[in-house]
């Protein structure tokens, strides 16, 4: 089963209210510098929408956001354009994009360390209901691929993967690790 349009959200640890406003100038700078792999187009501010996309960095091939969906803060990567290679490559590319975003934000002094980038879980999904309807059949089909991907990242038995089975939502699996992820190591491992 070939999948496209990987949608990956890394949930972030945070406490209480988080002000996303400092993200706006940072993302505008990224557009100016075209500092991602994709062609970056604009920044959208959805802070007024509860449990919404937060601050969105709109790209041509993919969008990045610090979003609040499910009332959980996270860095999301939403691949819009097709990507060559195998499914594993597409998973790796999405996680690499998210982790790179975390690293860049963490290094940006304007956030003043207000965002914690520690994470123990991410949601790996497919943003296309026709390619990947959210049902058991898709899960059965993709489970080995996701298992292979996560084994490579964390080692077998060092994580759990749970299908988020609400049929109206997009297909996704919640991957959790018992300890905070070593993002530097992961980024290194995911390098092309």
């Amino acid at each position: 089963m070939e999948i496209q349009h990987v949608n990956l959200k890394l949930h972030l640890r945070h406490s209480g209210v988080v002000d996303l406003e400092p993200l706006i100038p940072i993302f505008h700078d990224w557009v100016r510098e075209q500092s991602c792999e994709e062609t970056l187009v604009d920044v959208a501010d959805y802070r007024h929408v509860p449990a919404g996309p937060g601050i969105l960095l709109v790209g041509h091939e993919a969008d990045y956001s610090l979003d609040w969906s499910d009332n959980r803060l996270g860095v999301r990567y939403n691949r819009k354009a097709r990507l060559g290679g195998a499914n594993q490559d597409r998973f790796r590319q999405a996680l690499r994009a998210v982790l790179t975003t975390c690293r860049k934000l963490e290094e940006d002094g304007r956030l003043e360390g207000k965002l914690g980038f520690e994470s123990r879980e991410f949601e790996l999904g497919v943003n296309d209901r026709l390619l990947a309807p959210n049902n058991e059949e898709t899960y059965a089909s993709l489970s080995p691929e996701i298992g292979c991907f996560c084994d490579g990242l964390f080692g077998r038995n060092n994580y759990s993967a749970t299908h988020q089975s609400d049929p109206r939502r997009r297909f996704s699996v919640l991957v959790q690790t018992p300890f905070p992820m070593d993002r530097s190591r992961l980024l290194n491992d995911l390098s092309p």
Partner: protein
Amino acid sequence: MKASNHLWKERLAGDIDEPLNREIDIFETEIDLRRQEKVDERLFAETRLRRGVYGQRYDNGQRHDGRVARSLEYPTANPTKGPNTLWDAPGMQRIKIPYGGLNGAQLEVMAELAEEYSDGIAHVTTRQDFQLHYVHMEDTPSLMRRLGAVGITTREACGNSVRNVTACPFSGVCPDEAFNVTPYAKALSRFLLGHPDCQNFGRKFKPAFSGCSQHACGLTSMHDLGAIAVTRRENGVEVRGFELYVGGGLGAVPYQAKLFDEFLLPEQLLPTAQAIARVFARLGEKKNRARARIKFLVHDLGIEKFKALVLEERDRLPEDPRWKQYLSEALAASGEESPQPAGDLSESGSPEYRQWLKTNVRPQKQTGFVVATITLPLGDITADQLRSLADIARRFTPDTVRTTVEQNVVLRWVRQCDLAELFQALESAQLARPGASNVVDVVACPGTDTCKLGISSSRGLAAELQHRLASKSAEMDQAIQDLHIKVSGCFNSCGQHHIADLGFYGVSRKVGGYAVPHFQVVLGGQWTQNAGSYGLPIVAIPSKNIPEVVSRLGERYVSDRNQGESFQDFIKRTGKLQVRKLLEDLAKVPGYETDRSNFSDWGDPREYSISDIGKGECAGEVVTAVEFDLAAAERQVFEAQVFAEEGDFQQAGETARGAMLHAARGLIKIEFLDVPDDRDEVVKEFRTRYFDTEKIFDPFAGPKFANYFFAAHRSSGNGHTPESSRRLIEEAQLFIEACHGCFNRMGLVPSAATA
């Protein structure tokens, strides 16, 4: 762009009505032909617009990053999807929702589309449509098929066509309505959709229905075609009819619709609308887009002549069985009553619940049932919320919701006894925000966020106002709570600023050589009486000072108003001169080097620009003189308003005309310091130097505003009525804005600013 695009056609085969299915197939072919450059870009642009596929900001590939304008490097350089519109640039998909009516299945599809093709947000517009932003051209056929499978079309959502037929969202349940207009709106929408007589308009055509004349919900006065339900008794029997209006519209210069028929029988509705469409298509302006709306045709012909032409046309129309068939089918299918008996209302509960009850719930005419309004911030709703809304609609209503012109959603047929549970369900979905249709429920068009025409950040300002007002709404005087605030990003009025108590529209000003986002403060508009009267601009204030404008006006209203006095009456009694004085200090902008906060807009930290700012070749003194002239011209427009307010319409009109002349002279001075005082000479010089060279042409409106100036000059010596003087004032203001725009585009930096 989606990998699944080629699969949806097969997957939904049989689920879409065949005519719509065929239309989408044809559209897909047109996309292919354009990709092969076998279709002209202008033709393709209108083709996609008529499918609701709209352009979006930066789709020309240019974006100012706060320092300089840069090109966005999209992978596909050619073809374009219209003049100056790059193929890869994301666009907006408008989705027509006749009378704002949706069911759960449709909401769920809207959620899927928002997630898969857009940014996870669906946006409710001021005309009861939905819009999805950042949509890619290649995805639109799949998106349309998925909508088609649940009975929604995007056909004629944009372009020179009959746009969404809107209607009061309380139709059928409002205690004050004459009768339920829903089936009539439905029948008209169905009849005019794709009708051959509606394919050759010079501009768009917007119909609206209202169940009564006194409330605002239908806004019929500002529509091309407005129908208000009325009844009368004939031989002891109640007969239904419509007060029919034509030629209303906001836009740059607003027009109140004219009464066409005080009692049009329902069976005459469709043929009359068809006849109006035919007259509009035949006689309406086609070349000059600035005068192509039907309001200009009605104005130029006069309502009596226009009516005579329409009735003549109607008499000539061959009988069409659909006139009656569509009405009878819509009337037969109009029932949506709740099958469950209503219970008693429980008013006890949390303070949040009681506040929500107070602002968001209103009784229906059917005993025991209520309408609950879901207040959407800036009209935005997430995909998850749409799915929750679908569940809520199924659980608490007969599977029905309606969007509103205030960018909200209403739930009808809610049993009173279910309100506490409904509130809980809404709270879980984060949809239980109070303040429906009051001062915190700020309406805004997309503005600079996504609109190609936006000048200032209407959504940024609206979000800021909502945030500030919501934090103190509990302590606010009721008189303040009842005000309406509406914000447009430019003069085009998509945010309906003319009909708000406090309206704002975006303009740009140069201060010390740097562009500063501003909003014109528009006061005196009337929201009720179906948008009964329009406000006028008082003064342009820097964007960042607008919250203080709201605060000051609110405080003055509370302290000085007479018992029961409306805001509109209060402004009228106070006088524009006094109001302007109250705000005047807020118009000042500290220098760029002193405080840069005014040089960027709300929610957008980039240094503000609507074009590149560079050094020109003119002497600084000359430029300073231009700025002085433009400011003087603006003062004259304001004086004209004061004359109009005092009832001296002759003087008002002449002063507005003089203001235009003043602004024109200012621009001429850049090139020709010794411009003579003679009016004819000024017009001649202006035409040669700015019109023939197209320097004054607005990037989007073209020669529209310059033509206001020429028309004003041609009509010199004519008398002024209240309406004509008012129009001249509006046109003068817009012409001056155009002069500001022209000056900004010329990139002239005064020597004083660079010193």
